[in-house]
């Protein structure tokens, strides 16, 4: 077993048990694991975003190696930038297979404008970048939703109730009974959200059936949510069981012993001091005494 794998197992065991310790109560182990997760995630995302998108697709189109000519203004700027970071701006231009597209200066400018929100006197400029993103996203989403969620779903729920080639009843495959359920469920569910008329009489009864369909849907969602959480728990326990072996120097057992020991000692001191102190102030209870 490689030393790095063993270290990785110890770190994973510590972070997993540290997060689980929140089930007892908020404590420094949990906080350490949480902060580490947020920091590492943000750093990883930033680094990957830069090296997979900004560097090859933005800078790679502004300063492609194909058109490298040190006498032009563009590449004079490039060589100046290259002086500061030769890994981002390597000598001779960026070779990612692009042609030069100076139109990409516009997204670069919009991106810089968004960063200007950090400077109060220029923060108004960030609105331009945000406006572009909002406008683009709204336009993109409108089409997708209309096509797939509205038209596609209307088509999907327009079932033939008189298709006698189908079996009368089937649990999961198409059947007359299932088609009837889709038809009634869709109509009644929609009627529940029709608020222009008081829900009385026939509309009231139909909307009540709609509520039952919605409740069944919420129940299914809850069931799936439970199943998902248990799956994740199984994943963590599987890893903890793996890390409890001798090849990992019993990482799980040691980490569990240390965390439970420290939290138990903190709880003992807290009880004896008679002061209800938050457990995240470990060691500070003496001062409070």
């Amino acid at each position, binding site marked *: 077993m490689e030393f790095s794998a063993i270290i990785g197992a110890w770190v994973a065991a510590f972070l997993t048990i540290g997060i689980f310790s929140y089930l007892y109560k908020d404590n420094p182990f949990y906080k350490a694991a949480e902060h580490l997760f947020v920091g590492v995630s943000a750093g990883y995302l930033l680094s990957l975003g830069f090296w997979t998108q900004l560097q090859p697709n933005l800078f790679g189109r502004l300063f492609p190696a194909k058109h490298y000519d040190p006498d032009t203004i563009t590449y004079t700027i490039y060589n100046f930038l290259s002086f500061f970071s030769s890994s981002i701006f390597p000598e001779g231009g960026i070779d990612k297979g692009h042609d030069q597209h100076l139109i990409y200066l516009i997204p670069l400018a919009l991106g810089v404008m968004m960063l200007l929100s950090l400077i109060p006197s220029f923060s108004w400029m960030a609105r331009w970048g945000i406006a572009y993103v909002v406008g683009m996203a709204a336009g993109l989403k409108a089409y997708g*939703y209309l096509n*797939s969620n509205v038209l*596609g779903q209307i088509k999907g729920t327009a079932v033939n109730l008189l298709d006698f080639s189908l079996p009368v009843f089937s649990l999961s495959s198409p059947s007359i009974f299932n088609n009837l359920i889709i038809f009634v469920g869709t109509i009644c569910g929609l009627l529940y959200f029709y608020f222009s008329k008081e829900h009385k009489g026939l509309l009231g009864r139909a909307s009540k059936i709609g509520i039952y369909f919605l409740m069944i849907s919420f129940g299914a969602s809850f069931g799936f949510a439970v*199943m998902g959480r248990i*799956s994740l728990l199984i*994943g963590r326990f599987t890893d903890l069981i793996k890390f409890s072996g001798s090849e990992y120097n019993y990482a799980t057992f040691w980490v569990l012993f240390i965390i439970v020991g420290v939290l138990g000692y903190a709880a003992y001191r807290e009880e004896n001091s008679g002061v209800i102190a938050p457990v995240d102030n470990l060691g500070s209870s003496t001062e409070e005494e």
Partner: protein
Amino acid sequence: MNKIEDIFLKIGSVDRRWIFIVIAVVVIIPLLVPIGLPIRATDTSKSVYDAIEALPKGSNVLLSIEYSPSTKPENHPMTISIMRHLFRNDQKVYITCLWPDGQFMAQDALKQVAEGEFNKKYGEDYVLLGYRPGGEAVVKGIVSNIRKLFSVDAKQTKVDDIPMMDGITNFKDFDFLFSASAGYPGTIEWVQYAADPTGVPMSSGVTSIQVNEVMPYVQSGQMVGVLAGMPGAAEYESLINQKGSATSGMDAQSVAHLVIVLFIVLGNISYFIERKRSRKY
């Protein structure tokens, strides 16, 4: 009768930490001592299997990885099983990632399946195009011109130098799409911006939480089947006759569900007794 009611009331007011311990115990025991409960494939999982099985040899399959280590127990077994099925049938696999961690998960799965089990050649049998930020904009980019978005792959090799990228310019050049998804951006974006507008068939493997969101697309025929959470992954493992981590987790899953149902029943009994008594006084 009152004594029995008191017991139920006591159970109803038990410290939640005891419930955590019980759940932990019932999950750990089946992991250590497997029961081997039977796994039967549902129609939605079978549809995914049939769709991939029906692809002619050498088809171009786009596999999109949209999950992170946080949902690894659910999504990763699906990805591994789908890769095994595709490589066994000699399909060409193109991998993209809409999530940054997806690239790392894809590398892990490829190392295990493509290199370890099938000895496939990078650039000829499979390619990892990698992660690009932008969510649905990336999907739109792949649909219109994949080469504009992916000028280099995850190893920074120019796509023009990758043999299996010959003839691949946009989404219509793929014969099938499988999205292993844990949320946004993921399966829904692929349906909305790629599969629906182009008509290229797609399937998906999603986390349990997403199943209710994705199922309408399966029902309406916009997607060909779905692998639903860990059970879906276990079903696919049984369909390709190669058991993995999802199958071994299903015993614990089933036992834990039974215990949770028991807790819900006990909690409700306690609630109704409490309500009855409060009305009395």
